[in-house]
């Protein structure tokens, strides 16, 4: 029987970053995720799509929500999962990332989900192994499933699931852009789907070099607020900062924090996103984080569907390779 629509086929074995995906790839993955969303709401929260496949979570950095989201996504597709952490494993005994990965692969693994503090680690891993690799965050580079779930959330809230065309929408990303893999994945994905991206933060954390990606850079949140449709508030990542980038947390919160008072300058339908975990009182006030404009918990829910879609597509890539 003929498939309705085009002869499009998902071409990627790995999901390493949104920079590597075309607009069509992104739209296809998010459409697939839409089909997965109902699996989480029914009495039997499981489909047999990846029965007999093995997914390994290989995390060299702390993670709660991303790791559990990947584990749950794999279980809902009936895959078996194996949890490995950097701490307490042979990596702390001096084994290289490549050796670790090849040893895991030798156990008969189909997919490695990797988080690592070094930018490019997931790509390095993908070159070393024959199984699929999904990047769950590599240093300051990309966090593709986070970028995808953010865009999915916007498309749903804006009722754009049919077209996923974000032309005419403006999205601000606020905070520590320089150290943020979430920002990079969002920038690539949003621009590809036609949105305007405005980056906001102190010059030390939000340098003008980002203009070369096609974004607007601003250092004044109050100027930007009235002309945006969504705002993604990033967490200050103290653990990635090697020197002092701003005078004090209190000053940062005063200038770049989204408070209940400041949000009144924005359009009433402004959507407020946050990749979590929130530093309440720093980048987001409790009133805003828990308010009606907040999409924070929807983002977490959508993360499951998006990760299921990513795993399903990478593991069911059709055999005629086009990439």
């Amino acid at each position, binding site marked *: 029987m003929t*498939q*309705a629509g085009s002869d499009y*086929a998902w071409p990627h074995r790995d999901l390493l970053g949104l920079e590597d995906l075309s607009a069509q790839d992104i739209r296809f993955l998010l459409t697939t995720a839409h*089909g997965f969303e109902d699996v989480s709401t029914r009495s*039997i929260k499981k489909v047999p*799509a990846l029965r007999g496949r093995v997914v390994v979570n290989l995390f060299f950095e702390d993670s709660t929500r991303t790791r559990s989201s990947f584990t749950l996504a794999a279980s809902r597709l009936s895959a078996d999962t194996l949890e490995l952490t950097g701490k307490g494993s042979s990596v702390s005994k001096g084994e290289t990332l490549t050796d670790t990965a090849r040893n895991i692969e030798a156990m008969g693994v189909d997919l490695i989900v990797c988080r690592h503090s070094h930018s490019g680690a997931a790509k390095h891993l993908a070159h070393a192994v024959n199984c699929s690799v999904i990047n769950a965050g590599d240093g300051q580079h990309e966090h593709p499933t986070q970028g995808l779930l953010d865009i999915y959330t916007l498309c749903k809230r804006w009722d754009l699931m049919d077209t996923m065309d974000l032309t005419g929408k403006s999205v601000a990303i606020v905070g520590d852009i320089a150290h943020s893999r979430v920002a990079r994945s969002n920038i690539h994905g949003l621009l590809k789907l036609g949105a305007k991206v405005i980056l906001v933060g102190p010059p030390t954390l939000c340098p003008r070099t980002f203009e070369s990606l096609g974004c607007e850079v601003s250092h004044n949140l109050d100027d930007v607020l009235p002309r945006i449709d969504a705002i993604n508030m990033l967490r200050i990542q103290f653990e990635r900062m090697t020197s002092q980038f701003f005078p004090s947390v209190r000053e940062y919160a005063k200038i770049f924090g989204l408070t209940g008072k400041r949000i009144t300058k924005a359009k009433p339908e402004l959507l407020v996103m946050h990749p979590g975990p929130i530093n309440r009182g720093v980048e987001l006030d409790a009133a805003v984080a828990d308010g009606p404009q907040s999409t924070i918990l929807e983002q977490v829910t959508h993360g499951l569907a998006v990760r299921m879609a990513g795993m399903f597509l990478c593991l069911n890539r059709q055999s005629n390779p086009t990439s």
Partner: protein
Amino acid sequence: MSHMTTLADSSKIASLVDDLAGQINEAISASGSSHPWAIVGIRSRGDLLASRLAEKIDPAVIEKRLGVLDITLYRDDLSEINHQPVVRTTEIPFDIDNTNIVLVDDVLMTGRSIRAALQSLMDLGRPRRIWLAVLVDRGGRELPISADFVGVDLKDEKLGDEMIVDVHLMPLDDQDCITTHPKQKGSTK
């Protein structure tokens, strides 16, 4: 697409749908079941057929219980097919526990889609019973599955694997028709 034969045009399909609806209405009233009834179509043409049937079945019986099932995630041939599997939404906006379900598909051949659909329905709840309605039964079963209501029965034609039976339904296709043609070389489906 050479050697294509048209088995039914749009007016023939309309009368086949009328006939199927008649069979279903009769069976529902003969069943005497006190449980609710629902119609569920399998994407991507069984759902179109299901909504056409639903219009012709006593509205007091089905009360708008019309559902769409996407069986992609339940297929047993995901690793063998050579085209991109497309996952779409399953939309069953009613409780299927203790509901009598008429499952609808366009063409019945191996029975594997129906097996997947049955498993998918069981994962959504515990239906009272499931009946199967198909527009075409072309024979070629690989599983012990049979239809309760059939529009066109081609089982005795012994079509074989190399013949393809296609159902085209608007608005997904340009027109309503049922065609047969030999499988093109190099295609595994």
